[in-house]
């Protein structure tokens, strides 16, 4: 699995069984060995993959954010102890002990990065997107976050404080984005549709009502 073939799998993997990449073959061999030695159970591996494909994604975080937007007591609980507040909703996969929620305001925009690897709040956002794990994001987020936001089409007011949280330990951070104007009286479910994955990383903002259903 040398570095040279890293993009090839993306183009011709599952449809063409005859064109197995070196990476694919090595991973398959590793699974065979680990299974034969009794360390892993392929059915459990299937279940893990299925969970990440179908259950554990940014909708979990969006539900949390929408609730915080409509319920001041819940919002305070989330900011006080996000692990507990998320767990109290009970309908998503359990979260670890170390979740911290940080609130965006007109005065302050929060952004999350892991410069050393790819730490990310999986329980509430699912698997991190490729860009989050990429060298451009990991290198620039701590030094030029406004430039990174510009790559996402976001231009914050010049006076807004930008606060970057580098996830260098096991604490995981969830951004509570600002609630868009014009959403008074909306249900939690409708509000959750406005909460994008990127807005909970701080690389984006929540959608405006007019951006929905386009």
């Amino acid at each position, binding site marked *: 699995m040398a570095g040279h073939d890293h993009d090839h*799998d993306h183009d011709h993997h*599952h449809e063409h069984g005859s064109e197995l990449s070196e990476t694919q073959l090595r991973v398959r061999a*590793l699974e065979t060995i680990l299974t034969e030695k009794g360390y892993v159970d392929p059915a*459990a*591996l299937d279940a893990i993959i299925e969970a990440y494909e179908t259950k554990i994604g940014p909708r979990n975080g969006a539900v949390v954010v929408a609730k915080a937007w409509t319920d001041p007591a819940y919002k305070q609980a989330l900011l006080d102890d996000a692990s507990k507040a998320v767990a109290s909703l009970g309908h998503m996969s359990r979260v670890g002990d170390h979740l911290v929620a940080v609130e965006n305001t007109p005065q302050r925009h929060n952004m999350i990065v892991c410069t050393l690897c790819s730490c990310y709040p999986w329980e509430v956002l699912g698997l991190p997107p490729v860009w989050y794990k*990429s060298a451009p994001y990991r290198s620039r987020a701590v030094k030029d976050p406004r430039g990174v936001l510009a790559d996402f089409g976001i231009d914050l007011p010049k006076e807004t404080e930008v606060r970057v949280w580098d996830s260098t330990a096991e604490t995981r951070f969830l951004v509570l984005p600002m609630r868009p104007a014009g959403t008074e009286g909306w249900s939690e479910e409708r509000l959750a549709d406005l909460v994008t994955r990127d807005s909970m990383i701080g690389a984006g903002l929540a959608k405006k009502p007019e951006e929905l259903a386009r």
Partner: protein
Amino acid sequence: MNGVHDMGGMDGFGKVEAEPNEPPFHAPWEGRVLAMQRAMGYAGAWHIDHSRFAQEQLPPGVYLTSSYYQRWALAMEKNVLERGYVGPDEMAAGHALRPGKPLKRKLTPDVVEAGMTRSSFYRQQQGPARFKPGDRVRTRNIHPQTHTRLPRYARDKVGVVELIHGCHMYPDSVAVDRGDNPQWLYTVVFESRELWGPDADPTLKISIDAFEPYLEPA
């Protein structure tokens, strides 16, 4: 270690390019790698910091040109070999030639949900916390050749303690098999000019999570 994984503040990697409607996995093998990593972690075969350290030790060129899950797979191969879970002869054969080593438990379909919950990193405190929110601290100027979670851009810099996260297992120790060695963990926030010099964006603040051995009073 001062590897290419420690990317904060580097220039030249270009724009951040998001992929619209990105799928969870770009190929089935990526999911297998992730799931095997989870299963081996659940079994107690190694710790997450062993995985990180194994990736950091990849040759820089390999690290930079491998995809995320390729790095995971390479690190897993290294850990199963170095920790004696698989022999080089088995790796070459593509099959087990001997029974496996005993592990503390096995991830089976009935316990997958428990297996996917992150374990707690809290550990029993060994003494009182040395710092409290509001304290000024200077990060140490350390350059260990082994795993550390103090990024280069934030060494020998003055910041302010903002949060205390309790006592956690210490990655610098765990990664080299020297035990949990629990340490207090803090969020320390820096002014941009402290990290990036007088031309830095004055509206920017950056924080890291720093273990107590990384810090001294300032």
